[in-house]
C-alpha cells in the first residue's frame, strides 16, 4: 500500500539552506549536503530543494549542488526555482533530480507544463501553487505569483481551483499547495484550501505551510486526504524528528514507510 510521504523542504540560497517566516527574513540554517544526508538517515521520504535565489533574479538554478546532492542521497528529490524551459528542466534532471517543480513560470506561460510532461513524462512535473489563504474566504482563492520575494509577489489573476484543473489537464504529475499565510507560522495546515483542491483533482497532492506539531501532520493526512506533507522549520530546528513523527503517525493508523 502506498505510504503517505513526509517531505522536508530545504530553501537554498547560494548553496546554503535558509529559512524565513512568510518568505521573509531568511537566515542560514545549515549546509545543503549535511542536512540532506541527515534527513535521509532520519527516514525522510523525499526532499524538495527550492532555490529561492534562482526564480526572482531570473537566473537558472545552478546544477553543481544538484549533482552533489544526487551523489549523496539514495532517496528521491525534487528541485524547484528558476525552471522556465525544457532545457532548464533537462539540466536539473540530468544532474540527478527526480522531479522538477514549477510555479511562477507556469503562471506566466502555462504551455510549459505541457512541454515538460511531453518531454519527461507527467511523473516528473510538479506544479507548486502559492495561495494567500485568507485573502478571500468566500470560497474563491487567487493564486499568487512570484511569492519567492515578497516585494515582487503579485496576484496572478488566476482562480485557485481553475488553475488546479488547468495544470491537471496540461499534464502535471503532482501539486504542492502552499498556504502563504500559514508558512512558518506553525499553526497547522490550511485544511479548507486543501479540501477544495483535493476535490478538484486526482493528482498527488502535497500540503505545504503551517506545520508546527506532530498533530498537524496527523490531522492533514486524516482530514484532507493529502498524499504528502511538506515542512521546513520544524524539521530544520530539530523540534520534530522524522523518525518520531513516523512512529506517531503509524500509531494513529496512518500508513508510513518505517
Amino acid at each position, binding site marked *: *500500500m*502506498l*505510504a*503517505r*510521504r513526509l517531505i522536508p523542504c530545504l530553501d537554498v540560497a547560494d548553496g546554503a539552506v535558509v529559512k524565513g517566516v512568510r518568505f521573509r527574513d531568511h537566515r542560514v540554517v545549515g549546509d545543503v549536503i549535511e542536512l540532506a544526508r541527515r534527513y*535521509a538517515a532520519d527516514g525522510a*521520504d*523525499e526532499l524538495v530543494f527550492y532555490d529561492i535565489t534562482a526564480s526572482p533574479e531570473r537566473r537558472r538554478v545552478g546544477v553543481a549542488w544538484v*549533482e552533489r546532492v*544526487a*551523489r549523496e*542521497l*539514495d*532517496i*528521491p528529490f525534487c528541485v524547484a526555482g528558476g525552471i522556465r524551459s525544457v532545457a532548464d528542466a*533537462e539540466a536539473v*534532471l*540530468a*544532474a*540527478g*533530480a*527526480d*522531479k522538477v517543480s514549477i510555479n511562477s513560470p507556469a503562471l506566466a506561460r502555462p504551455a510549459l507544463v505541457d512541454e515538460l*510532461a*511531453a*518531454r*519527461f*513524462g*507527467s*511523473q*516528473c512535473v510538479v506544479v507548486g501553487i502559492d495561495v494567500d489563504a485568507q485573502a478571500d474566504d468566500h470560497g474563491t482563492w487567487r493564486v499568487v505569483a512570484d511569492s519567492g520575494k515578497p516585494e515582487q509577489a503579485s496576484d496572478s489573476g488566476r482562480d485557485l481551483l481553475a488553475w488546479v484543473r488547468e495544470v491537471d489537464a496540461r499534464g502535471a*504529475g*503532482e501539486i504542492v499547495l502552499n498556504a502563504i499565510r500559514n508558512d512558518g507560522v506553525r499553526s497547522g495546515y490550511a485544511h479548507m484550501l486543501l479540501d477544495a483542491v483535493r476535490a478538484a483533482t*486526482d*493528482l*498527488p497532492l502535497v500540503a505545504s505551510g503551517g506545520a508546527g506539531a506532530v498533530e498537524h501532520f496527523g490531522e492533514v493526512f486524516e482530514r484532507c486526504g493529502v*498524499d*504528502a506533507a511538506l515542512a521546513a522549520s520544524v524539521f530544520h530546528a530539530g523540534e520534530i524528528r522524522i523518525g518520531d513523527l513516523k512512529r506517531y503517525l503509524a500509531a494513529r493508523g496512518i500508513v508510513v*514507510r*518505517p
Partner: protein
Amino acid sequence: MNVRALIVAAGGANYGSLCEACRRIGVDAHLSDDPARIADATHVILPGVGAAAQAMGALRARGLDRALRELRRPLLGVCLGMQLLYEHSAEGDVDGLGLLRGRVRRLPAAPRWPHMGWNTLAPRMADHPLLRDIGRDDWFYFVHGYAADDDGATLAAAEHGAPFAAVVARGHVHGTQFHPEKSAAAGRRLLANFFAL
C-alpha cells in the same frame, strides 16, 4: 568474474544517481551510448526518466535498440527503462524493444494518477536471485504513470489502483518499475542482487 557494469546513457535520464548507487555497493559503473561498449559489458542497466516515445527515439538514433536486442548478459531496465523492454507502450503509442512479451498501459486514474511514492511488493517468485533478502516489508520508491501487466514474467507485483509488474525477469532480461537507486537500503540490496547474477 569481474563486473563490468554499463549504464546506457541515451538522453536526459538520471545517470548520476544510478552511478553513485552502484558505487555505494562497490560497483564501478560506466556511462555510454556506444553500442560496442554495451556488447562488452557483463551487466547492463537501461535507466529512464522521460516519456516512452522520446526515449525509444533516442535509443534508435544511436543504434542502441539493436545492441540491446543482441545482448545475452544480464540486463536491468529501471522505471521507464523497464517499460521500454516490452513490445508496446501506450505512452505515446510507441513500439518498445520487444525483449519482454506484453504491453505497457496507463495506470488507473483512481485513487491517484500518477503512482508516486513508497510502496511494498507482493513477491510471486520469491526464490529468484534478484529478490534475495527482499520481502513484503521492504519499501521501494515508485514514480510513474504507466506500467506493464502483471503476467508470467512478474517476480513481484505492486498495487496502485490495480496490480502491475514491479519486478520482472525473463532469461537475462530484468526490470524494476521502481527506482532501486532511490530506494535506500532495499534498493541497494536489489542492485547488489543484480550484479551477483
